[in-house]
C-alpha cells in the first residue's frame, strides 16, 4: 500500500469515520451512558436557531475576510510592482505578519482596539466613533475580520507579486500602444491574466477563513458579544469541549465537512472554467 494512502487512511478517513459515528450517538455529560440515535442530532442541530445564526456569521465572516485579504493584498502587490526603490524592503516588511501566530495576531488586535486600553480604539473614539467591540456585534465582527484578513494579507501578497511578475511586460506595452490607460490596462489585461492566482487564493482564503481562524476568534471575541461572532468552527469547539454536548458537536463537524467538500467542488467546477492559464 502506498504510504500516502496509509497516512490518508489514518489521519483522515479514520477520524472522519469516528466523527460520523459519534454524530449519531447521544451521551450524558459524564460519559456513562451512550445511546445510538440515528440522525436525531442532525435534526436537532439544523433546527437550532443558534446554529443557523452561526452559519450566517460564518458566511459574512468568510466572505469579508477573503475579500478584504485579497483586495488589500492585490493593491499592495500592484504598488510594490510600481515601486522604483526599496522594493525588497517593502516586500520583506509586508511578508512579516505571516510569521505571527494567529492567537498572537488576535491578541495584538484585541489590545489595539480594546475599548478601555486600546490606543487605536482611543483614536477612533476621538474621531467621534462610538467604538465598542465588547458590546456591539458589528464592531466585534469588523475587528475579527480585520485581524483575520491582516494575518492572510502577507500570504496573498506574495502570490500576487509572483503573479504580477509572470504577466509578460510586452503585453502591457502592447496594451499601452493600443491606447489603454493604466487603469484600463490593469482591468483588461493584468487582472484577467492573474485569474489563476486569484482563483487559487480564493480557495485558500475561503478554507483559511472557515477553518484556520479558530485561534483568532478565540483570542479576539470568543464568539461574542452574544453569539454575533460565533463561526461554525468555533461553535463545534464550544458545544463539544465547553458545553460537552458531544453528539451535537460531532454532527456539526460532519456538516462542516460536507460544506467544505461541496465548496471545493463548486469552486473547481464553475470558477475554474472561467480561468485562463496562459
Amino acid at each position, binding site marked *: 500500500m502506498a504510504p500516502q494512502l496509509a497516512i490518508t487512511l489514518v489521519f483522515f478517513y479514520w477520524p472522519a469515520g469516528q466523527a460520523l459515528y459519534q454524530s449519531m450517538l447521544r451521551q450524558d455529560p459524564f460519559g456513562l451512558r451512550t445511546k445510538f440515535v440515528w440522525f436525531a442530532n442532525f435534526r436537532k442541530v439544523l433546527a437550532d436557531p443558534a446554529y443557523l445564526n452561526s452559519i450566517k456569521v460564518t458566511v459574512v465572516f468568510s466572505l469579508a475576510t477573503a475579500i478584504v485579504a485579497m483586495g488589500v493584498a492585490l493593491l499592495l502587490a500592484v504598488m510594490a510592482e510600481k515601486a522604483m526603490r526599496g522594493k525588497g524592503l517593502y516586500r520583506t516588511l509586508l511578508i512579516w505578519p505571516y510569521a505571527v501566530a494567529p492567537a498572537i495576531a488576535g491578541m495584538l488586535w484585541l489590545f489595539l482596539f480594546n475599548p478601555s486600553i486600546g490606543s487605536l480604539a482611543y483614536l477612533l473614539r476621538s474621531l467621534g466613533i462610538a467604538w465598542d467591540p465588547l458590546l456591539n456585534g458589528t464592531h466585534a465582527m469588523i475587528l475579527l475580520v480585520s485581524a483575520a484578513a491582516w494575518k492572510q494579507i502577507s500570504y496573498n501578497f506574495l502570490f500576487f507579486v509572483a503573479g504580477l511578475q509572470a504577466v509578460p511586460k510586452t503585453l502591457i506595452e502592447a496594451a499601452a500602444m*493600443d*491606447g489603454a490607460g493604466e487603469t484600463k490596462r490593469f482591468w483588461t489585461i493584468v487582472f*484577467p491574466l492573474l485569474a489563476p492566482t486569484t482563483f487559487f487564493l480564493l480557495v485558500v482564503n475561503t478554507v483559511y477563513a472557515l477553518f484556520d481562524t479558530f485561534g483568532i476568534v478565540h483570542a479576539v471575541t470568543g464568539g461574542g458579544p452574544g453569539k454575533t461572532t460565533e463561526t461554525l468552527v468555533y461553535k463545534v469547539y464550544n458545544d463539544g469541549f465547553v458545553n460537552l454536548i458531544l453528539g451535537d458537536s460531532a454532527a456539526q463537524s460532519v456538516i462542516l465537512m460536507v460544506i467544505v467538500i461541496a465548496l471545493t467542488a463548486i469552486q473547481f467546477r464553475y470558477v475554474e472554467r472561467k480561468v485562463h492559464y496562459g
Partner: protein
Amino acid sequence: MATVDLKDVKKVYPSGIEAVKGVSIAIPDKELCVLVGPSGCGKSTLLRMIAGLETISAGTVAIDGKVVNAIGPTERDIAMVFQNYALYPHMKVYDNMAYGLRNRGTPKDEIDSRVRSTAKVLELSALLDRRPRELSGGQRQRVAMGRAIVRNPKVFLFDEPLSNLDAKLRGQMRVEIKNLQRKLGVTSVYVTHDQLEAMTLADILVVMNAGLVEQTGAPLDIYEKPASTFVASFIGAPPMNLLALTGSSSGPILADGTAIDFAAPETQAATLGFRPEDADVTFNAEALPGALVLPATVEAVEPVGAESFLHCAAGGSRIVVRVSGRANAKPGDQLRVVAKAEKLHWFDQAGKRVD
C-alpha cells in the same frame, strides 16, 4: 500619412550605459526604414524610444513634424508588432484586434467592419473565434500584424517580427509585409538583425553599430558602396572578403607578403575588400593585367545548388568566392582568385571607405 524624424537621439541608462549615442534619421512619408545591426547595437532601444516605451535621454523624436518626446505611447498613435507577438492570451483573435479600437471609442459597427475586413486581407477570417494558444506561429504573427493594421495608425513599428518563424515562413511573410506596407502606405520602422530581411524590405536602410549609425541609404547603394569595413562585413551573405594591407615603398603588400601590382587609390589604404560574387577562380597561370590576382588554397567547398561557395586561404586571410553552378575545385586545390580592379573596395586605417 506621417514622417518620422530623429534628431541626435541618445539613450543613457541609469547605470551609465550609453545604448544609443546620438542618432539622426529622417524617414519620409510612406517609406519603410529598416534598422539593422548586431545584437546590442541599440536598434531595439531606438525603436522603443520611437514607440514611447523608453524615455529619450537627449535629442528629439518627431512624428509628422510634432516632437513627441513628452507624449506617452498611449497617445502617439503608433502600432507595434512585437517579436513574441504579445497577443492578449485571454482574448479571442477578434477581441485582440478590436482592443485598440475599443480603447479609442470607435463605434461598435465600425469596429466590426474594420476587424472583419482586416481579417480578410490577412486570411484570418476563419480564426476570429480562436484564442492565441490555438494558433500556429505564422497565424499568431498575422494576428499581431492585423492588430497593428486595423487601427490605421500613423506609424508601424516592427521589432524583429519574423525571428520566431521558420525559414520558409519567414520568406513568405517578408514578401507579405512588404506588399502590405506598400499598399497601406504607412510609414514604418523595422528592426532586424537579419541582413537579408533588411536588404529586401528596406526603402531606407540604416546600419547601426555600437549605438551609432554606420551608414544610411538605399539598400543597394549600401551594398555597392559600404561606408566602412563594418558595413561591408555586415551587409551581404557571405560577407565581403577583407584583406589587411601593409604599406611599403613599392606599394601596398598583403599581410602574407603578396605584392599587389597596381596602385591603391590612396596610399593610406589599410584594408582591401571584394564581394564573393565579384571574384572568380582560375587554374591557369596567364597574366591578368588590371585585376587583383591572389594565389589561394581551397579549404572547403559549399555547393548550394545554383551556386557554390569556395572557402580559400589567400593573402593571409580566409576568403570566400562565389562561383555559379558546380565548382570544379576540391579542398586542397591550389588556384588563383581573380577580382576586377573596379570591383575592389578600399578602406583606411579607421575602417572608413576611400575612393
